[in-house]
């Protein structure tokens, strides 16, 4: 994998640290919103920020997911001054637990209806978390974005081709990863936010503006 030698020029350690803190605030708010709805305790990891090249992004993403495929990937793109893509990754099997958490689980359903409910649960939870997290992120940075509807991919090896088309092979990708665990329900997953090089300049400026208030 290409190590970006000039990564620190593009995005300094200090800027990564500010982004890490802003993501921590954003995802913290997002899980609180979800916890209000489904009454669960969600444990979060420290967010990690890395810069990778567009052509390595798919491999980088796959390497960072420490759960065995297949997984459920709920994906959503956002656009504005900040353009990017968010992924919520859940392991296979979590769809049943999430359906139960939303109170939609019913016994003796036909398989078609059961799958419909499970997909709905994944999309709903993904939508709440990604919307609240990115919403808070751009709110903290005094901006706003619009979202595409969430899309669910249930595959043994997701291609992540759509975000790659958005980013471009030649672009630099800022990748933010947070792990989360629904305590007492044995559900864990990953949240990724990626944004392209075009957004980088706005992002850097917005992060510094955020810090200037302190």
């Amino acid at each position: 994998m290409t190590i970006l030698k000039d990564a620190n020029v593009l995005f300094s350690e200090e800027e990564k640290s500010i982004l890490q803190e802003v993501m921590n605030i954003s995802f913290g708010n997002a899980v609180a919103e979800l916890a209000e709805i489904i009454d669960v305790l969600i444990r979060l990891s420290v967010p990690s920020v890395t810069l990778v090249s567009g052509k390595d992004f798919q491999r980088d993403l796959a390497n960072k997911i420490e759960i065995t495929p297949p997984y459920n990937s709920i994906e959503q793109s956002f656009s504005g001054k900040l353009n990017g893509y968010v992924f919520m990754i859940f392991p296979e099997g979590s769809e049943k637990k999430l359906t139960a958490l939303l109170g939609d689980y019913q016994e003796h359903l036909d398989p078609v209806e059961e799958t419909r409910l499970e997909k709905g649960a994944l999309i709903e939870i993904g939508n709440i978390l990604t919307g609240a997290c990115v919403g808070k992120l751009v709110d903290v940075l005094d901006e706003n974005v619009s979202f595409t509807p969430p899309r669910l991919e249930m595959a043994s090896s997701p291609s992540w081709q759509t975000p790659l088309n958005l980013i471009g092979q030649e672009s630099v990708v800022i990748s933010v990863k947070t792990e989360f665990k629904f305590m007492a329900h044995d559900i864990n997953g990953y949240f990724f936010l990626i944004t392209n090089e075009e957004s980088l300049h706005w992002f850097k400026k917005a992060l510094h503006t955020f810090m200037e208030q302190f």
Partner: protein
Amino acid sequence: MLKKILIVDDSPVAIRILKVCLPPELDVEFMEAKNGAEGLECFKRFKPDLTFLDLTMPVMDGFEALEEMLKVDNKALVIIVSADVQKQVVDRVMSLGAFLMVYKPPSRNTIQAAVNKAVAKMQEMRVS
């Protein structure tokens, strides 16, 4: 009265923000730690009058650090400063014995109010 403050947070940015939000007239000695384990060691050695503690940290999280700090000194004043604002989290840290919880990003007003409460509590403990 308030002479020593310990700040435990893995984010140098969060520490910087917190320090800026503290009352400027404070004349205190600071100590910083970047995870719960380091924070606990500093707590034992430095014996702070007031501790600001993050929750989501590597090595040892803030929940465990809080419990351990209160085992060392059950009257310790520990203010949780966290982005994890889930109700169950707030309930848990308060039941563990945190003095207050402040949400990230903090403001000057919330931090100054928290410090004032801590100072008042210290005076109350000294009298009793």
